[in-house]
């Protein structure tokens, strides 16, 4: 272990969200030994894994990488990035790699880069599944090969071991595929022999950057310092603070269990953790426990089985607003009837939903009796079918009814407000996560491929 605690600079909750140069400078001046951040998660949905694309634009990721690569190179410390390109599939990782190479060329840097790939071939997973090595996590059941086949891309979520191996081999920059947020941030400290429970707990607290501070908007990042029996966390903005509530509350965030966090090689148990204010800005945490378990990697698989088309209208007509639920029900019934009559059995197992924005679109449930409608509502029409062409045909069949559905039968037909022509928009596939399983492994590197790009060897940097 290095002399004193291991200090990890976590510049932002997610690469591309906006690292701040002055914060990074501050963290470096405090003696950071590594810069670490994740670059994605499953939060934004399955499309990013299925399509291999980032939710961020290229410019925002390049901007953050420019700040972090320059700072890392100047300080001579590694830059560690996990879940590259939002989903951490091979395409997401290659997209990030190309940006890193571009920035290196622009800054005149010649780093040794490790790329950690964890996307899986379907046939590989079928073999593990056949060998009884794949277990479901609730609420899903046992994995069938047809579900594996339905995925467009599958990743196995890495732990810290591939990062530790790359760091031990001298990587200046590591770009990882899909990894637990905590493993990315804990890897350097674990390699250097810091307290194992504290390394994992510090990483969980810092995984969203400034989110664990008193004023999350005031700090993009935090500095975690991991010692032999606990860790400290402080904001990278000198004017922001951490306190025991802000830090302990983050352990709860996006985690279904407030005390236990399951990781590839064990479980972090914070039941007996103690959070103490050290100075105005810094919190000390002790009592974090790591319980090793047999090694597993979680599988994430994304695919699409259905397609959608959408249309949108705005309604101010007081006749509609007088009884929104009744309007919804009659219109929905009329649209189903229209599809049955104009497309018939060819429409297949289709689905139509009407989302009444301003009324109950977020919940779908019925507001209590007597609830007043607002001045206007928006109605989003969503048709879902087995092909994009059929979803589109269903929307077109519904078009005249959706835009002109009468409330008062013996008056002229109304026209509701629509903003676009053509009015129907093919939204594309419905991407879903199809896997919630773990695969049991003897070796943490078994499903990981490490590729090196060593720009220090010369050539056109």
């Amino acid at each position: 272990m290095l002399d004193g605690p291991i200090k990890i600079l976590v510049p932002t909750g997610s690469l591309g969200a906006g690292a701040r140069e002055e914060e990074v400078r501050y963290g470096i001046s405090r003696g950071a030994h590594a810069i670490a951040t994740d670059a994605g998660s499953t939060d934004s949905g399955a499309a990013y894994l299925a399509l291999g694309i980032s939710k961020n634009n290229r410019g925002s990721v390049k901007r953050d990488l420019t700040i972090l690569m320059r700072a890392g190179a100047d300080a001579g410390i590694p830059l560690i990035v996990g879940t590259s390109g939002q989903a951490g599939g091979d395409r997401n990782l290659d997209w990030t790699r190309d940006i890193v190479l571009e920035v290196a060329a622009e800054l005149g840097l010649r780093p040794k880069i490790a790329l950690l790939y964890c996307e899986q071939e379907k046939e590989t997973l079928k073999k593990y599944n056949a060998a009884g090595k794949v277990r479901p996590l609730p609420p899903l059941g046992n994995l069938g090969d047809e579900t594996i086949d339905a995925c467009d891309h599958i990743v196995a979520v890495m732990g810290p071991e591939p990062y530790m191996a790359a760091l031990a081999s001298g990587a200046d920059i590591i770009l990882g595929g899909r990894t637990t947020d905590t493993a990315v941030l804990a890897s350097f400290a674990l390699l250097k022999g810091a307290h194992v429970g504290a390394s994992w707990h510090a990483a969980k607290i810092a995984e969203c950057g400034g989110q664990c501070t008193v004023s999350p908007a005031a700090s993009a990042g935090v500095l975690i310092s991991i010692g032999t029996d606990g860790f400290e966390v402080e904001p990278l903005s000198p004017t922001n603070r951490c306190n025991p509530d802000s830090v302990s509350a983050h352990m709860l965030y996006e985690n279904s269990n407030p005390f236990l966090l399951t990781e590839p090689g064990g479980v972090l148990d914070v039941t007996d953790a103690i959070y103490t204010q050290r100075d105005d800005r810094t919190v000390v945490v002790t009592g974090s426990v790591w319980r090793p378990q047999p090694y597993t990697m979680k599988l994430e698989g994304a695919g699409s089985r259905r397609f959608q088309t959408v249309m949108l209208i705005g309604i101010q007509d007081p006749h509609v607003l007088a009884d929104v639920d009744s309007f919804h029900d009659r219109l929905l019934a009329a649209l189903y009837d229209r599809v049955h009559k104009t497309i018939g059995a060819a429409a297949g197992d289709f689905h139509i939903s009407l989302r009444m924005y301003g009324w109950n679109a977020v919940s779908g449930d019925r507001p209590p009796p007597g609830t007043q409608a607002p001045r206007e509502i928006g109605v989003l029409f969503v048709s879902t079918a087995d092909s994009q062409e059929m979803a589109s045909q269903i929307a077109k069949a519904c078009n005249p009814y959706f835009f002109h559905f009468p409330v008062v039968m013996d008056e002229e037909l109304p026209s509701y407000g629509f903003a676009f022509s053509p009015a129907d928009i093919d939204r594309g596939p419905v991407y879903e996560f199809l896997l919630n399983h773990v695969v049991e492994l003897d070796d943490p590197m078994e499903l990981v491929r490490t590729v090196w790009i060593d720009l220090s060897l010369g050539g056109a940097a």
Partner: protein
Amino acid sequence: MVKLKDVCRHVRSKNAGPFWVTFDLFFDGPETFRDYHAHPALGPDTFHSLYGADPALVRHYPVPSLNMVKISYARSSPQGGVVERDMHCGQQFVRLLDVELG
């Protein structure tokens, strides 16, 4: 009639991975935490009726040191599916605020 919003300083909801939703109920203080965190109206049946959750897959985790209880349930339909209305489930806490705690 006491409602949840009367005894909590903060309530939030968020996806916990694609298959689970988690609610954090931070009570005003130790007394309201003690009196209400295990109230039957915050039990699995409420999460079934409000969110369609399978009562067998609703989990309660009281955290006395923070005067809060975490309640997590498996989503009735996975994130991003055909009938998705709230990808992050970040708006789902609102309907819980008016639950009556008798």
